[in-house]
C-alpha cells in the first residue's frame, strides 16, 4: 500500500494556494508603496538624498525578492534535480518570492544590501528548503532570516543608523518608539508619544520603524481585504492584538496611565504587521479553530513578556517563532473531538490566569521603582536653617535643620508622632549625631535596628536637604 503525501496547508475553501498568494501580494502593494513614499520620496523632497536614494526602498525590496527567487531556483536545480518543465512547475507552486519580500519588509532600511542578500539566503535555505520546501517548513522562513540578521549584524545596522531613515535621523534622532520606551525612566505621554508627534502619527505610519511595519492604517486595510477574500482567518490577528491591548491596558492602569498607553503599545513596533502577515502564515499556524485561539493568546502573552521582561525592545518576531514550534501540539488539542472546547477549558483558564497575573506583576514592577519621596516637604527655607517634614512610622516628623555653608550643623526635632519606645531607641543610638557626622557619606549610615522606619525617615530627611542645598 502506498500513501500519497500532499503538502499543507489543507484549507477547505474555493481558494487555491495560487489565489491566496496573489491576494497576499495585492494586500502588500499599498504597504510597499507607502514605505517607498516615507523612506524615498519624503527624503528626496527634503533634499536628504539623491535620485538613487529616492528609489532605494524599492531597490531594497526588489533585491530581497530576486535573491530568494534565484536561491530557490538554483537550489531546486542542484539538489532536487528538477529540469525544464518540472522546474517551471515547481517555481509556479513554491512561491519563492515571499520569504525575500517579507525579510526586506521586516528589516530596517539601513541594513547593508549584502546583509539583506545573506538574510534572504538564510531565510530560503535554512528556513524553507531544508525542511522540504513550501508547505513543509515548521518556522516562518522570513522570520528565520530576520532573526539571523538581527542577532548577527545588529551592531552594524545600528551603527548605520538603526531603524531611522535619514530624514528621521535629523527630525527625531534617537530611537524607535519601543526602544525609547525601554530607555525612559518614567512612563508618561510626554516621554513616550510626544517625541514622535501624537497617536495619529502612530496610526498613519509617521514614526520610525522597518519598511513594512509603520503604517498601521494600511495594515488594517490589508487585514480587512484579506479577510473579505477569505485568505486569513480573523481569530489569530484579532485575539493576538487584543491580548496585548488588554495586558498593556492593565499595566497602564496600574501606573495611572490613560487609554493612550495600550494604543501606543499596539501601534508601535511590528505587532500589527506580525499579527496580520506573519502569525497567519497558513503553513506555520494552526489550522483548527481552537488551536488558533490558544496560539493567538499565547502569542500575545509571549510578546508582552518579551517586551517588558527582557532587554529586547521588540518581542513579535521571537514570540511568533517560539509559538511556531507548538503548532502541531495545538492542532492536536484542537482536532481531538467535537467537545474540544470543553477539554481545552483548563488550558484556557490557565492562559487567562497567566495573562492577568503577568500584567499585574509587570505593572507593579514599574510602580515600585517610580515612587520616590513624595512625603518629603520643605516648609521653610532660609540661609541658616530648613524646616522640613517627612513621613515616619506614626505620622509626619517635623524638624528644623541648621545649615552652614553646605553642611548640616544641627538637627532639632520639632514634632514627632513616633511610638515612644521606638523613638527612645533612636535617641539611645545617638542616631541624629551619627547622621550629622557622616553627612558626606550618608548612604552608608546604617539604620537603627528596631526602629527602622523612623530612622529611615530621618535619614531621608537629611539626604533630601543635602540634595536641595547642592541643587
Amino acid at each position, binding site marked *: 500500500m502506498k500513501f500519497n503525501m500532499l503538502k499543507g496547508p489543507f484549507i477547505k475553501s474555493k481558494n487555491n494556494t495560487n489565489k491566496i498568494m496573489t491576494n497576499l501580494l495585492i494586500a502588500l502593494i499599498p504597504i510597499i508603496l507607502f514605505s517607498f513614499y516615507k523612506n524615498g520620496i519624503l527624503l528626496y523632497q527634503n533634499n536628504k538624498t539623491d535620485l538613487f536614494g529616492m528609489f532605494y526602498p524599492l531597490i531594497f525590496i526588489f533585491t530581497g525578492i530576486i535573491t530568494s527567487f534565484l536561491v530557490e531556483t538554483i537550489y531546486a536545480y542542484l539538489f532536487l534535480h528538477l529540469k525544464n518543465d518540472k522546474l517551471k512547475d515547481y517555481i509556479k507552486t513554491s512561491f519563492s518570492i515571499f520569504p525575500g519580500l517579507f525579510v526586506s519588509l521586516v528589516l530596517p532600511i539601513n541594513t*547593508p544590501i*549584502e*546583509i539583506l542578500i*545573506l538574510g534572504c539566503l538564510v531565510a530560503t535555505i*535554512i528556513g524553507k528548503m531544508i525542511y522540504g520546501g513550501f508547505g513543509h517548513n515548521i518556522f516562518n522562513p522570513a522570520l528565520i532570516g530576520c532573526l*539571523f540578521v538581527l*542577532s*548577527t*549584524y545588529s551592531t*552594524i545596522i545600528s551603527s548605520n543608523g538603526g531603524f531611522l531613515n535619514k530624514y528621521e535621523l535629523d527630525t527625531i534622532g534617537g530611537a524607535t518608539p519601543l526602544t525609547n520606551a525601554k530607555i525612559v525612566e518614567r512612563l508618561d505621554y510626554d516621554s513616550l508619544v510626544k517625541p514622535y508627534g501624537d497617536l495619529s502619527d502612530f496610526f498613519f505610519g509617521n514614526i520610525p520603524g522597518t519598511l513594512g511595519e509603520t503604517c498601521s492604517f494600511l495594515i488594517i486595510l490589508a487585514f480587512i481585504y484579506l479577510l473579505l477574500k477569505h485568505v486569513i482567518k480573523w481569530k489569530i490577528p484579532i485575539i493576538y492584538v487584543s491580548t496585548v491591548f488588554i495586558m498593556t491596558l492593565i499595566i497602564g492602569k496600574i501606573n495611572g496611565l490613560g487609554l493612550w498607553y495600550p494604543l501606543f503599545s499596539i501601534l508601535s513596533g511590528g505587532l500589527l504587521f506580525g499579527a496580520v502577515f506573519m502569525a497567519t502564515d497558513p503553513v506555520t499556524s494552526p489550522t483548527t479553530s481552537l488551536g488558533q485561539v490558544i496560539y493567538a493568546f499565547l502569542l500575545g502573552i509571549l510578546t508582552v513578556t518579551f517586551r517588558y521582561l527582557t532587554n529586547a525592545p521588540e518581542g513579535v518576531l521571537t514570540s511568533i517563532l517560539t509559538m511556531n514550534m507548538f503548532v502541531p501540539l495545538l492542532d492536536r488539542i484542537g482536532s481531538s473531538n467535537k467537545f474540544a472546547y470543553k477539554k481545552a477549558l483548563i488550558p484556557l483558564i490557565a492562559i487567562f490566569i497567566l495573562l492577568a497575573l503577568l500584567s499585574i506583576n509587570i505593572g507593579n514592577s514599574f510602580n515600585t521603582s517610580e515612587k520616590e519621596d513624595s512625603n518629603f516637604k520643605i516648609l521653610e527655607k532660609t540661609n541658616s536653617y530648613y524646616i522640613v517634614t517627612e513621613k515616619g512610622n506614626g505620622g509626619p516628623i517635623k524638624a528644623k535643620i541648621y545649615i552652614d555653608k553646605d553642611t548640616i550643623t544641627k538637627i532639632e526635632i520639632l514634632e514627632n508622632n513616633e511610638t515612644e519606645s521606638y523613638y527612645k531607641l533612636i535617641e539611645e543610638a545617638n542616631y541624629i549625631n551619627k547622621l550629622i557626622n557622616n553627612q558626606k557619606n550618608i548612604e552608608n549610615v546604617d539604620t537603627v535596628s528596631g526602629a527602622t522606619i523612623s530612622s529611615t525617615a530621618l535619614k531621608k530627611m537629611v539626604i533630601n536637604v543635602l540634595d536641595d542645598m547642592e541643587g
Partner: protein
Amino acid sequence: MKTILNGIFKENPVLVLLLGLCSTLAVTTNFENAYLMGICVIIVLTFSNITVSLIKKIVPKNVEVPVYILIISTFVTILELLLEHYIKPLYDVLGIYLPLIVVNCIVLGRALSVASKSNIRTSFKDAIGIGLGYTFVLMIIALFREVIGNNTLTIMSSTSKLTGYKLVYKVFDANTLFPMNILITPAGAFLTLGFLIALFNFIKGGKKNESR
C-alpha cells in the same frame, strides 16, 4: 588499520553515531580547545577500552554499566590530577569539560559495544580510531566556527606557557559580512554540526533515503 578507519569514517562517533554532542558543541569555539579535548578523550578512551577488555570475563552482565562508569571515572580523575599538577594551563582551559568526559557517551558506548566483546588488540585499535574520528570532527567544526565567527585561528595560546610559542592568526580583513558572530554562539554550533552531518551524508551518497 581497518578498525581505525572504521572509527574515523564508517562509525564516526559525532557524525554517524551522534554521540558526545555536548562537548562537541561546547568546546569548539576555539581550535586549540578542540584538539586538546580530542587528545584527552583519546587517552581516556584508550585506557578504559583496554581495562574493560581485560576484565570482561569477570564482570557480571547485570552490573556492567556501573563497573564501566567506575573505570572511566577513575581514568578521568587520574588524568585530571596529573594535568592539574604538571600542565596547569591546559587544566584551566579544559575546565568543566574534563570531568564531563566521564559521562561522554562515546567512552561508555565503546566500552559496552566493543571492548566488552573483543580482545585487547581490537579494543585498543577501536579506541584509537574512534578517538581520532572524534578529534577530527571537533577540529573541523572549531576551524569553521573560529575562522568565520571570530576571524582568528588559535593554534597555541593558552598552552603557550608550556611551549613558549604563541600562535594566533588573523585570517582575513573584516568587512560587513564577516566575522559572522552567530557562529560563536550555541546556535551557530548547532547549525555548523547540522550542515556538517548533511555534507557527510551527501558525500557518502544519499541513495538510501528514497524510502520517504
